C-alpha cells in the first residue's frame, strides 16, 4: 500500500476536522449591525415586494386566496398611479408549506429578486425558519400571515412586524366572553396540536377554570375528529371553543351533527371564514346522508371572533370596497374572508409605503412603521412601535345567523398577551376614500 499519498490525505482530513472543531456547532457569533439606509429593490418606477406562500401542496387550497387578494389590491394601487409614482412589483414564491423550500425561495427573493421587504410570509413553521435570515440581512419583514407570538420579539427580531391578532390575545377575549355570556356551562377545547393550541389555551385558561370539562387536540394530518367530538358529548360540553383551521371546524361540526350533539360553537378567526366553511361543508357532505342539508344549518348560531372587515357585512364600507376591487382586478369569482385577509394586509402595506415618503429606504420604511397612525381597514387598533410589534391588538365577537347575516355581539376589545386586562376601545376607521394608500 502506498504510504505517501494515503498519509497526506489522512493529514489533510485531520486538519479539516480540527478546523471545524474550533467552535461548537451551536455556538453562533453575534452578527454585526445591519445597514438599513439602502434602497434595495426600489427604482424610480418600481418597488419589489416579496412573499412566500403555499401555492401548491395540501395547504394551498386554504391559503391561495391570501396572495390572490393582495395582488388584486396592489393592481388597484398601481392603476391609481402607484405610490409616489412607483409601481408595486409583488413577487410571490411557492414554498408548498415545506420549511425547507421556504428557506430556498426566501434566499432567492432576497439575493436574486433583491426585494425591498418581505410581506405577509405565510405559516408559523415556514416563516419561523427564515425570520433569523431576514433580520440578519436587514430585510424588513412586514406582517407575517400567522398569529404566532414569535413575530413580536423586538429584542431578537427588530425588523419583524406582526399583523394578525396573536392567538393568546384572541383566546383571552374568547374566554372572557364565554365566562360572561355562557356562565355556568361546561366548556370543551378543540385545538390544533401546535403553537395555535398552546397559545390559545394560555389565553382561555385565564378566564375559564372549572368550567373546562374536556381538552381535545388534533394533528393537522388527520381526517377524522370522531374521537374528539365523542369525548365532548360524553363530558356534556355545552360550549366548544375551536382553535382550528376551517377544514377541521367543518369536520367537527359535521361529526357533531351526525351524533346529534349540538354545542355552542366558538370559533377563532383562523377558522371563522363562513364563506370558506360553507364551501367545505358542502364538499364534505357530498355523497353522504346529509347531502341535502344546507351548510347554513350547521353554522347557525356560531360565535366567531375576528379583527378584519367581513365580506358578508353589507354595511361595512371596506368590505364593499374589497368586493369591488376584487371584481375588477382579481382572479376567480368568490371572494372569501381569506381574500380579505390578504387585501387588508396589502392596503396597510401600501399605506406605510406611502408614509415612508418619496425618498424610500429601508430605514425610512422602519421609521414610518414606528410612527404610523393606523386607522383601518381592520376594526382594531394596531401596534407597530415602541417595542410592541404585535399588530392587531384584539378582536370583536360576532354571531352568525342562518341566511348569511351577522350580529356583532361584542364590540372590539383590546388586550395584551400576558395577564393584562381586556379593555374596550373606541377605534375609528377611515373610509377607503380617506385612507391614504395610493397616489
Amino acid at each position, binding site marked *: 500500500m502506498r504510504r505517501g*499519498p494515503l498519509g497526506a490525505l489522512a493529514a489533510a482530513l485531520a486538519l479539516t476536522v480540527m478546523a471545524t472543531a474550533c467552535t461548537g456547532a*451551536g455556538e453562533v457569533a453575534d452578527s454585526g449591525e445591519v445597514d438599513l439606509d439602502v434602497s434595495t429593490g426600489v427604482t424610480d418606477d418600481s418597488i419589489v415586494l416579496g412573499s412566500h406562500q403555499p401555492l401548491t401542496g395540501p395547504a394551498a387550497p386554504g391559503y391561495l386566496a391570501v396572495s390572490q387578494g393582495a395582488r388584486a389590491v396592489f393592481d388597484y394601487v398601481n392603476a391609481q398611479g402607484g405610490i409616489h409614482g412607483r409601481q408595486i412589483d409583488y413577487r410571490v414564491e411557492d414554498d408548498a408549506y*415545506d420549511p*425547507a423550500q421556504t428557506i430556498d425561495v426566501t434566499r432567492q427573493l432576497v439575493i436574486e429578486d433583491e426585494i425591498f421587504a418581505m410581506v405577509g410570509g405565510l405559516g408559523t413553521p415556514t416563516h419561523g425558519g427564515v425570520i433569523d435570515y431576514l433580520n440578519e440581512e436587514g430585510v424588513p419583514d412586514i406582517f407575517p400571515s400567522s398569529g404566532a407570538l414569535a413575530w413580536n420579539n423586538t429584542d431578537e427580531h427588530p425588523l419583524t412586524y406582526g399583523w394578525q391578532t396573536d392567538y393568546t390575545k384572541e383566546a383571552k377575549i374568547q374566554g372572557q366572553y364565554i365566562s360572561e355570556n355562557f356562565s355556568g356551562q361546561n366548556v370543551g377545547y378543540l385545538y390544533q396540536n401546535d403553537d395555535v393550541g398552546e397559545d390559545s389555551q394560555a389565553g382561555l385558561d385565564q378566564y375559564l377554570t372549572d368550567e373546562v370539562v374536556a381538552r381535545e387536540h388534533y*394533528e393537522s394530518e388527520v381526517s377524522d375528529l370522531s374521537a374528539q367530538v365523542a369525548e365532548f358529548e360524553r363530558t356534556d360540553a355545552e360550549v366548544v371553543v375551536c382553535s382550528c383551521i376551517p377544514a377541521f371546524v367543518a369536520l367537527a361540526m359535521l361529526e357533531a351533527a351526525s351524533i346529534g350533539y349540538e354545542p355552542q360553537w366558538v370559533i377563532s378567526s383562523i377558522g371563522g371564514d363562513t364563506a370558506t366553511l360553507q364551501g367545505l361543508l358542502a364538499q364534505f357532505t357530498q355523497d353522504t346522508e346529509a347531502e341535502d342539508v344546507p351548510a347554513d344549518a350547521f353554522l347557525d348560531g356560531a360565535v366567531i371572533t375576528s379583527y378584519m372587515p367581513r365580506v358578508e357585512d353589507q354595511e361595512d364600507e371596506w368590505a364593499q370596497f374589497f368586493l369591488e376591487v376584487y371584481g375588477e382586478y382579481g382572479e376567480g369569482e368568490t371572494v372569501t374572508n381569506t381574500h380579505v385577509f390578504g387585501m387588508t394586509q396589502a392596503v396597510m402595506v401600501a399605506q406605510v409605503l406611502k408614509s415612508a415618503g418619496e425618498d424610500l429606504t429601508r430605514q425610512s420604511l422602519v421609521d414610518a412603521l414606528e410612527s404610523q397612525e393606523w386607522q383601518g381597514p381592520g376594526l382594531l387598533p394596531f401596534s407597530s412601535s415602541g417595542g410592541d410589534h404585535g399588530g392587531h391588538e384584539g378582536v370583536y365577537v360576532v354571531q352568525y345567523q342562518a341566511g348569511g347575516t351577522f350580529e356583532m355581539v361584542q364590540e372590539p376589545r383590546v388586550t395584551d398577551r400576558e395577564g393584562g386586562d381586556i379593555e374596550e376601545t373606541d377605534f375609528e376607521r377611515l373610509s377607503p376614500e380617506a385612507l391614504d394608500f395610493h397616489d
Partner: protein
Amino acid sequence: MSSPTGESAERATGPATGPSPDTSRRGRWRALPSPLRHLLLAALGLAAVTALLFVTGDLTALRLAAVGYTMLAIAGLQLLVGGSGQVSLGHGAFMMIGAYTMTLLVLHQPMLPIAANLLIIVAVSAVAGIAVGAATARLHGPYLAGATLILAVGLPGLTHRYHELLGGSNGLNIRTAGAPPFLQGVFTNSEWKALVVWTTVVIGLAVLATISSGRLGRRMRSLRDDETAAAMAGVPVGRTKVVAFVIASAAGGLGGGLQAYVLGTATPSSFTLVLSLTLLAALVFGGIGSLWGALWAAITVVYLQIWATDLARSLELSRNVENNLPVVFFGIVLILVLRFWPLGVHGALTRLGSRLRPSQTR
C-alpha cells in the same frame, strides 16, 4: 488455485507468460488500492466544488450544499436498491432521523463540534438501520417495499407523540455556527456550510464506492442477482442484507443531518412519504446501476423545480400551470427515461461514452 482446468489453461497459453505488467496510465490507476483511488477522486471532487463556490454567490452555495447532502442520501439508497436489490420506500425516514438528531444535538449540546455531531448521527442512524434491516431481512420484493413504506409514513408521527422534545408540527429551529473566526474573511457562512457538507459527502461517497467495489459489494450484488445461489456459495444472506440497510441508513442519516445543519430547521412536513418516493424516482432517473446515478438524481431533485418554474415564467404561462409544471415535467421525463434508457441518465451516458471509444477493446 489448483483446479485442473486452471493448470491446463496456464499450460495452454505457453510457458514464460505471466501477467505482463500494465504500465499504461489506466493500468497504474487500477493498481492503486481501491480506498486510495476513491479518496483521491473525492479530493478532486472537493477541489472542484470549492472552485465553484468561489465563483458563485450565496444562493448557489445553498443549492450546492443541497445537491451534496441529497447526493449522499441517494448514494446510500443506490447501494441498497441497486447494489443489494432490496427496494426501500422509506429512505426519507432515515434522513429524518439524521435531521432531528442534528437539531437535538445542537439545541442541547451546542458546544460539540460539527464533526462529533456527524459521528453521533452515523451511530444513531446505524442503530436504526440495524433495527429496520433485522425486521425486514426475511422480506423481499413488494413485501419489503410495504414494510419500509410503514417507516416512511409512520415516523413523522413520532414528532406529534413526543411533542415536547421534538416540537410537533412546527418542528425545531436551530442556529449553527458559520465559518471559524480565522476564516471569516475567506468564506461566507453559506459557503463554509456548503464546504462542510461537501467534505462529508465526498468522504462518505469514497467509503460507499470502496465498499461497493470490494468484497461486501460483490456479496450484495450476488444477493441481488440470485439469493439462493449466493447462499449456496457461502454468502451470509441475512447478515449482508442487514449490513446493506445499515450502510444506507448511515448515508441517509448523514444526508438528513447535513440538511438540518444547512437549513437550520427540521420539521415533519419536510420528510413526508413524497420525499421517500422522490428519492427513489430520482435515483431511477439518474441511474440505478451506479453511484454516479446519485449525482444526476441529486441535481434533478434540487434544480428541476427551479428550472421548470423559470421555464414556465419565461413562457408566461398562467399561474396555475406555472405552479404545477415541475411535477408534471418530472413525471413525463421519468416515464420517457424508464421506457428508453432503463439504466437512467448515467446508463445512457456510459453507453454514449463506450460508443465514442470503439477502439478500446477490453
